[in-house]
């Protein structure tokens, strides 16, 4: 018997298994870099990452009936890692979405050697840089991705602010790096990485400060304890308010809510497209998983205090994102602003608290699949070696490559929220749930905002089908099975969740109860 067990500490290893598997595979990936010859690294890394994430998903499924904490002392749970319905559902969603994202990271056919730089340390646009463009991209991206995904899985199950902070940093740091690893337009990519890093660090500082305030107020960093303190703490409530505000700012930054959104378009545009896909799908899931838990578990007792300001932020985010999106000419920026608007819709789910937890998670899953496929398609349409991200270049794509255009049309209609796509079911069920929580005002703004947002998507569809292609129109590169799978999975999920959403809606309904609420 070791010391911990003597002290009465019990660890639910099965419950921790998903994260452990991903972290172990990440370290394994680092060893692969050191030991496996260069030519075979890609195959080994991709297989390792996909297998690890699949195993993590299986472990999540096996955990599905758990409702408790991973650590406990003499039968009393410690809330650092919480295994409950929302946590497990989001872990599973993250595992699936990141498998898809890894496949996209591994795409090497659409552009020779992939989208990633071989030697990130070489000065951009120097002679050495031009020489290394012919080389295959670095394979360190896979362990980095695994670290980030492990951090996200921890973030959505963290039951106290401290664990949550560690998870936040763990998911952020690898992402800062990944953003700067584009092979082409490296300066823009590096600028994006630096911006993301500086602002992320800024936001983290808010988080730590807020955590200190809440600790001062509640005497604990445990979310359930903070909630209890909201009812019976003798400390001045000022600490609570400042703490809530600071924590909310940090998390809304990650979620890309207005006015903490400004990094989003720059980083989404600058980062290599597969990394953007990972951020748009998985980071969104993690950020809102965290927001849901913090507000449902930790701050439900002070809901009256923060309800107004969060409503204002949600309205600003919905309208801001949609209005900004209208004039975008670049498909990646358009998707970035639409991601901001979607953050607004998701915030409705956070504000509605317990009524809408399940529907918010459904929205996250549905949006994740669609947006990953959308970015995958963006990486297929190319002018020579570079992605043709300017929308004007997409004109008449329907004539030259009808297959791709059909896929884009389906994805755009889903993002615009038309029936028979996951976008519609997700929005409808989220808004309906918010209504049950008496948030009619937010729902009205949501409907109006999605009507505005439908316009830029529609413009893309019109461009694709009704405009004449330019003589030097971009080519659609045939994807390898990697990106091909990504697109197919994304489109399939978009349609399936639009036509038969029942099974997933039932699942989120069962999984919508947090521990300690």
């Amino acid at each position, binding site marked *: 018997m070791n010391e911990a067990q003597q002290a009465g500490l019990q660890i639910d290893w099965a419950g921790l298994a998903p994260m452990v598997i991903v972290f172990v595979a990440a370290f394994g990936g680092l060893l692969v870099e050191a030991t496996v010859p260069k030519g075979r690294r890609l195959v080994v890394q991709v297989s390792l990452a996909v297998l690890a994430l699949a195993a993590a998903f299986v472990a999540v499924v096996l955990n599905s009936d758990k409702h408790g904490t991973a650590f406990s002392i003499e039968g009393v749970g410690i809330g650092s890692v919480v295994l409950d319905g929302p946590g497990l559902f989001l872990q599973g969603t993250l595992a699936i979405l990141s498998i898809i994202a890894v496949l996209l990271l591994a795409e090497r056919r659409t552009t020779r050697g992939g989208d990633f730089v071989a030697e990130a340390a070489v000065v951009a646009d120097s002679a050495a840089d031009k020489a290394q463009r012919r080389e295959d991209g670095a394979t360190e991206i896979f362990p980095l991705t695994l670290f980030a995904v492990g951090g996200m899985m921890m973030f959505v199950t963290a039951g106290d602010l401290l664990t949550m902070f560690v998870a936040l940093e763990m998911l952020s740091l690898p992402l800062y790096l990944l953003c700067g690893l584009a092979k082409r337009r490296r300066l823009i990519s590096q600028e994006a990485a630096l911006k993301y890093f500086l*602002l992320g660090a*800024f936001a983290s500082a808010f988080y730590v400060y807020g955590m200190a305030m809440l600790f001062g107020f509640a005497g604990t960093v445990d979310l359930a304890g903070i909630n209890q303190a909201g009812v019976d703490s003798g400390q001045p409530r000022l600490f609570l*308010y400042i703490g809530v505000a600071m924590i909310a700012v940090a998390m809304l930054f990650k979620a890309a809510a207005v*006015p903490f959104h400004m990094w989003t378009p720059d980083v989404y545009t600058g980062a290599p497209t597969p990394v953007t896909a990972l951020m748009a799908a998985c980071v969104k899931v993690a950020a809102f998983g965290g927001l849901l838990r913090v507000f449902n578990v930790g701050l439900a007792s002070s809901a009256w205090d923060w309800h107004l300001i969060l409503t204002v932020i949600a309205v600003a985010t919905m309208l801001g994102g949609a209005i900004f999106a209208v004039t975008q000419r670049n498909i990646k920026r358009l998707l970035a602003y639409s991601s901001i608007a979607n953050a607004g819709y998701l915030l409705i789910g956070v504000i509605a608290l317990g009524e809408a937890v399940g529907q918010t998670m459904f929205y996250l899953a549905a949006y994740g699949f669609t947006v990953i496929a959308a970015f995958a398609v963006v990486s297929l349409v190319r002018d020579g070696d570079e992605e043709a991200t300017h929308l004007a270049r997409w004109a008449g794509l329907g004539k030259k490559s009808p297959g791709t255009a059909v896929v884009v049309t389906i994805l755009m209609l889903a993002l615009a929220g038309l029936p028979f796509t996951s976008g519609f079911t997700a929005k409808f069920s989220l808004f309906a*749930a918010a209504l*049950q929580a008496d948030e009619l005002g937010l729902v009205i703004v949501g409907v109006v905002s999605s009507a505005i947002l439908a316009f830029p998507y529609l413009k893309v569809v019109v461009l694709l*089908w009704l405009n004449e292609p330019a003589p030097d129109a971009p080519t659609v590169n045939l994807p390898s099975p990697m990106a091909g799978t990504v697109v197919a999975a994304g489109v399939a999920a978009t349609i399936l969740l639009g036509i038969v959403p029942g099974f997933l809606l039932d699942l989120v309904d069962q999984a919508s109860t947090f521990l300690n609420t």
Partner: protein
Amino acid sequence: MDEISYAPAEGLLSWTWLLIALPAIGATVLLLAGRRSDKWGHWLGVVTVGGAFALAVAMFSSLAGLDNKSANLDLFTIISIGDLRLEANLLFDPLSAVFCLLITGVGLLIHVYAVGYMAHDEGRRKFFAYFNLFAAAMLVLVLGGNYFMTFIGWEGVGLASYLLISFWQLKPAAATAGKKAFLTNRVADVGFLLAMFTMLGALGTVDFQEVFNGAGSLSTGTSLAIGLLLLAAACGKSGQFPFQTWLPDAMEGPTPVSALIHAATMVTAGVYLIARSNVIFSLNADVQTAVVVVGALTLLFGAIVGCAKDDIKRVLAWSTVSQIGYMFLAVGLGGGAFALGIIHLLAHGFFKAGLFLGSGSVMHAMNDQTDIRRFGGLWRKMPLTYATFAAGWLAIIGLFPFSGFWTKDPIIASAFAREGWQGWVVGSAALLGAALTAFYMTRLFVLTFHGPKRWTEDVHPHESPAIMTAPLVLLGLGSLGAGGLMATSVADWLVPVFGEPHEVHGHLSHMQVTIATTVVVVLGAALGWFLFRNGTDEVPRAAAWPVRFARADLGGEAVNRGVFERPSRLAASASVAMDGRVVDGAVNGLSAAIGGTSRRLLVVQTGFVRTYALSILSGAVIVVAALMVVVVQ
């Protein structure tokens, strides 16, 4: 209000889903089979719609045998969230039955016609795929057993209409028109969605049966809100004021599309929505007044603009706008007039489809020209088209015994029967509309088929092939006889939906209204015939000979211009300007305003980290400050 309950579907009626499945299968096969089905694809399209029509007829007669006159078919649950369950259920009742017959019946004729009309078009297969898709979506719309299903069909017909308008992609005007239709429809969709959410909030359901039974418990404000939101949705879909602009623009699509979607079926979806929600609309007199005002305004507006247009399809489009105005007026009047609106809708479906297909036949003969100033004297060349168009013309102006007489007159009479001064105002508007309709339709008819030939040199008019004229003849017969047949039988048939009509006694007796209407219609038609019997001189880029024609008869023309044309043109140009500047301006202005705001706000997106950090910091300050404000309170 009696409790409404729908009986479960049994026997043949449990096959209701097949009505939708048939055209849906057709569309799927055509889209998936690709070029392989180019040879037989159009016939598949015809057969699926024909099958649906046969099924609709059979179901119609088995519904007639039921006591309850309704059949509710539960298919599956779409969404289930907490207490809220959204079912995919279909409702086959007298109202949806007549719509099914209209959609599949007129749809079948138009499909057959399109086989001939699109014979030389490379994309005929794709066209039929979209056409079938539209039929399926429209059937979902009218068969849906709750607002959610109706909404799915609502969006589906919007999408299919967008695809079909944009079908002739080579014309930039068609692409723009498609966009406009789609945008206006989105605005209308917001109304529909919000109406649904309001119902969900107030009643927790969108099922017809539960909503109608619970409607009595709604507060006045809520029922007003639901009614106005549904009205906004209906106005957008049906091209009613202030959303009328998209409909005439939508005529850029192929003519069969105009006939099916933008005359006979989709644009009447708004009328269906209001008629279906008759319980909600009857609750609140203010909502009813709003519907009446929209209807009366639109019917005049459409008729006045119709007088000023020279494009055969646009005149017909504006007349559609105006006729749907009559239907809105009827369903807005409520009570027994609900059924009148539906009957006019059915009759209109026949004669307007016939008129549109007739105009297609004319365009076919005239090298796709649409300018009526360049037609004339066609009656000798295309006798069948001429005869059927004449039937449609007499039906729409409502001369005894053609169908418009049976369906439009009662609406005018009901308008006069409205209480107080409102009855005089809307009644007179409806009467004036009838006179204007007679005038501009006669103008269209005479300029197209009679008078001197004003053809461009390279046209050689000829009658269309039998596959196009056969549907025309059937629709023509429908325009002749259907009105009289439907006037009483359909009203009785719809009693289970709208309740027993009670006798209304208004300012004028029914006979007085009939006489007044007939007089103004005859006057309007006679004036139109007299003024345009010798053609018109309003030909742009005047070639030598039409001008000479006009000058030879200057006397008549001078009277024409001085007495009638000038004032009518003034009124017409005023309403066209109103349409172009105010309404279009509002639509375009809204999008420009959003775009402008977008660009102005994006100035803050400087690219500098310091700006972004400042934004985060100020956001944080605001959040803290806001929380403090809550504390102080």
